[in-house]
Every structure is written in C-alpha cells, then in structure tokens.
C-alpha cells in the first residue's frame, strides 16, 4: 500500500505525521477482566469434557436431548436435570474454510486454514451439536453430511474447556 493516501483538494497524511505528533490524537486501551460463573449446566459440561466425555441434558416434555446441556428447556420453559452422555462422533452440518486470521490478515501460503464446522453429535437430538473445528482432512474433501469423530487432547493437558477436544476428524 502507498505510504501517502492522496485526497483530491486536501493534504495527504503519512504514518510519520501521526507518529511525530503532528496530528492530535488520544490513545487508550481497555483493560476488562471477567470471570463468569459457569453455573450448574456449563460447569458439568466442562467437567465431563475434562474426563473426555460429552454430556447433554434431556427435556422430559419435548424429549429433546440438548447440547450444550442446559438446566432448563428454552422452548418448554421447564427445568431439566436429566443428564445423558452422548457420543463423541457426529456428522458435519455445515463448515467453512478460513482464509484469513481473526484480525483479517491473510493466512500464509504454507499455513493450513482453520476449518470451523457445526457437528451434529450422535445421541443428541437432530440439529443439536457442537460448534468446533475439523482437522486431519484436506479442505477440498470436506462434505456436509460427512461422519467425524473427536480427537481429544491427552488427559493431562485437558483443563475443562471446549478445546479439550482438539478437533473432529473424518471417521
């Protein structure tokens, strides 16, 4: 990109103009720290992930097996305390291929793109699953409907987090 942006009828600015203080500006950076209470449902979900298991809750009224698990059914509006383990396998509902990093810089030529995907987990109700990443797969070979399985971090490295699963790979 050119160092000077030309504007018709105006005066161009350079990065040096800003750095040298010719342009008045106020800089501030925000320092916000949060530690969210996980509550009952998220807490159990994370604790089970640390054990290498995926757990859901089941609504006794609409019979949905809900993932991520929740303490209440948002449709029936009743409490749900019926915990149920589901598989760590599923099918790809949809996916994307990220050619840019989170800050919109392009990935390098030799860099593998991130492959976010919605995985419908076996044992959960239809349309319910986990937003996660795909791995050990050529992006060109990913298909909607493809069967995949979780690849877990080694037990000692798990912290009780959604990334205790490294990614899902084709089954």
């Amino acid at each position: 990109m050119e160092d000077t942006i030309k504007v018709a009828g105006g005066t161009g600015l350079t990065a040096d103009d800003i750095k040298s203080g010719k342009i008045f500006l106020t800089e501030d950076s925000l320092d916000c720290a949060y530690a969210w209470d996980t509550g009952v449902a998220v807490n159990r979900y994370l604790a089970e992930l640390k054990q290498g298991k995926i757990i859901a809750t089941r609504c006794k009224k609409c019979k949905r097996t809900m993932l991520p698990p929740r303490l209440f059914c948002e449709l029936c509006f009743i409490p749900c305390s019926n915990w149920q383990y589901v598989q760590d396998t599923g099918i790809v509902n949809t996916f994307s291929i990220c050619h840019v990093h989170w800050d919109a810089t392009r990935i390098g030529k030799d860099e593998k793109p991130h492959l976010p995907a919605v995985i419908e987990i076996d044992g959960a109700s239809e349309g319910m699953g986990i937003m996660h990443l795909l791995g050990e797969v050529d992006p060109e070979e990913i298909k909607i409907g493809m069967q995949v399985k979780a690849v877990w971090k080694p037990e000692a490295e798990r912290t009780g987090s959604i990334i205790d699963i490294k990614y899902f790979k084709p089954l």
Partner: protein
Amino acid sequence: MNKKVAIVGLGFSGFGTTTPDLSYREMIFEAATRCYEDAGGIHPQAIDSFVASSEDFMEGISIADEYVPDQLGAVLKPVHSITGDSLQGLASAMMQIKTGQQNIVAASAFSKVSNLSHHEHLVSYATDPVYIRPFNENPYFIAGLEMNRYLHETGTTRDQCAKVVLKNRYNALKNPGACYGARLELEDVTGAPALSYPLGIYDMSGHLDGAIVVLLASEERARELTDKPVWIKGIGWATDTPNLDSRIEGMGSAVYAKLASQQAYRMADINNPFNEIDFAEIDDTFSYKELQHLEALNLCGPGEAGRLLELGCFSPDGDIPVNVSGGSLGAGYLHEANGLQRLMEVILQLRGEAGPRQLLDVETGLAFAWRGVPTATGAAAVISTRP
C-alpha cells in the same frame, strides 16, 4: 394510547454479594419462573413480547441482547434490549401495551457484577476519553465533586448525608433480600476512611448480584391473570448533557431526576407529590444522592431534605417513608437492575407483601433510579393500587 397498564407478576433470584452457584442464564430463569408463577402460572408462550435492560460492558459480551431469549422463554418472540436503567426498560415495555401493539410484556434485568475483576475500570470507560480519562482518577471522584457542590449550594451537612446511611442500612435489617443491613453509629460513617472527599467509604453502596423479572399486562388481560394488580400510573425519564463541567444546572443538582419525575407526575395527574405519594424507593447509590434526589423529585423543597431526614420525615413511620427496603446502601447496588429493585419494593408494599417492613395504608408509591456515575440519566415511575 390510553390503555391502562398493570404489573401482574414479580419474580427475583438472589440476592447475594456473590452468586457462584448459578450462571446468569440460570439466575434469570429462576426469576422468570417465579414471575410467571406469580402471574397465575402463565406460560411464556402466552407472553407477547420481552424487554431486557443491560449494558454490554457489564456482561462482557458485545450485543448481549442476543443472549436474552432462552432464560425468559422468549425464543422466537419479539425481544429487544434497552441499554439503560431497567425503569427505562419498563417504560419501553409499557409503551408496547399502551399503543395496543402487545397485551402482555415481560421486563427483566440482572446484575452479575461479582464476575467483574475491576468494576472501576468499566466506570472509567464511561467517562469521556479526551476530557476526563487522561487524569487517570478513580471514577468515584465525580461523586465527590457532586456531593461537595450539593452540600455547598444547599447547606446540607456531612452528618445529614451520614444519617441516610444509618437509616437505610438499619431499614435493610428487616429485608431478607438485603445484604448490607447494619446498625451503625454516626461516627462509624463520618469517621470511616475517605473515598473521594467529602465521600467516605460508607457513603457508597456495595455491589449486589441478582435478577428481577416483572410482567406487565393491559387492563383486560391483567384482570384475568391476577387479583392483585398494581398500576403504572406515570413514567418518565431524562438525560442531562454528559459534560461534567457544564451540566445545565451544575453538578450540585439532579436535573435529570426533576425532569423525569415531572413527566411521570404529569402522566399520573399528580400535582403535589408530597401529599399524593405515600412512600418512595429512590436512588441512594451514594448517601447524598438520596437527599439530592428527594429535592429534585419535589418530595421536599430545595435544601430541605437533610433537615427533614433528621426530623424522621423519611423514616418508616414518617410522612413519606423513603427506602424502607434499605435502598442500595442497605440492600446493595444492582447496576442496570437498580430500577427494577426500587420497583420491586414498591410492588411488595402496595400488595401488602413486604413482611416485617410493611407500611400501613399505602396506595401510591414512587420508584426512581439513576444510572450511576458518570451519568446524568434518571427514570421515575408512579405505581398505584388504583387503576
């Protein structure tokens, strides 16, 4: 536009200085479940619309309003958030009914302030980045400036402000939902370490977690849902300029409270609030705020609040009991849920459900909330047992 609007349900979860047992979703679900049960066991499917009040920065999620529906039973329903105090949210919910657009509307707000590591940072980010932030002060200096100017202009004394703290924290001892109840002596407050002169640490309310949900209904639906409706007779809100150094009536005045209450009184057809309001739950985030707000709300004349407080006028057995619940000083400060917390006590008193702190023969109450430092925004609601 003349439809009458009733409050037909009230529910809460909490209250505590920390609430590690429940996520914010689970907390609001509990409050909503109680509220809907209070309104005759209505299922949220039968509720037309939902309004939440929140501030993204407080929750740590941009566009926090997208995370509102599940816990209120509002999935696939009209939902929106008001970035403001929950009495402003109440106004929005009320308007949906007054216009005839909806018949039953829920309004909610919560605080999980215990999840914030440094609340002061967020308050600082609410100040102007060019004019105020470069001074790098703890943001409560603004309350110190306001208090000093208010005392200077009105002749109100430091001790009178301290007596607000004594009253409200003592009142809180009769409120099981209050976390800061205490029997204090004057010297405990005036001799406490300074925060920002003339403000001491006891002059500022402590943080509180909790959730409150109320259900509003049009007159005909209200009669079907409950036999104990209370009615929103008037509501108003106003905001002064954000410029701390050039507020329209200066830093000693709470002009936002004056304008918000004038709007609410006009709507409620109240001409003499001192005679027509039986009790008030008003913002006391800081001790001097209760006195400053009493004057701005026209519940007494300018500069009179401190003296009337000492005469017992605002005590539970006084002419106009103020913050019988303990207020924010006694119960704890619920941030954007502040307004619904004030409203909750008004509802309980009007229904006769306030237990050991129940006031006798009350028909009309005032709820007033301020959005806190550094804002100049307030909202007022006049609530009555009569439609």
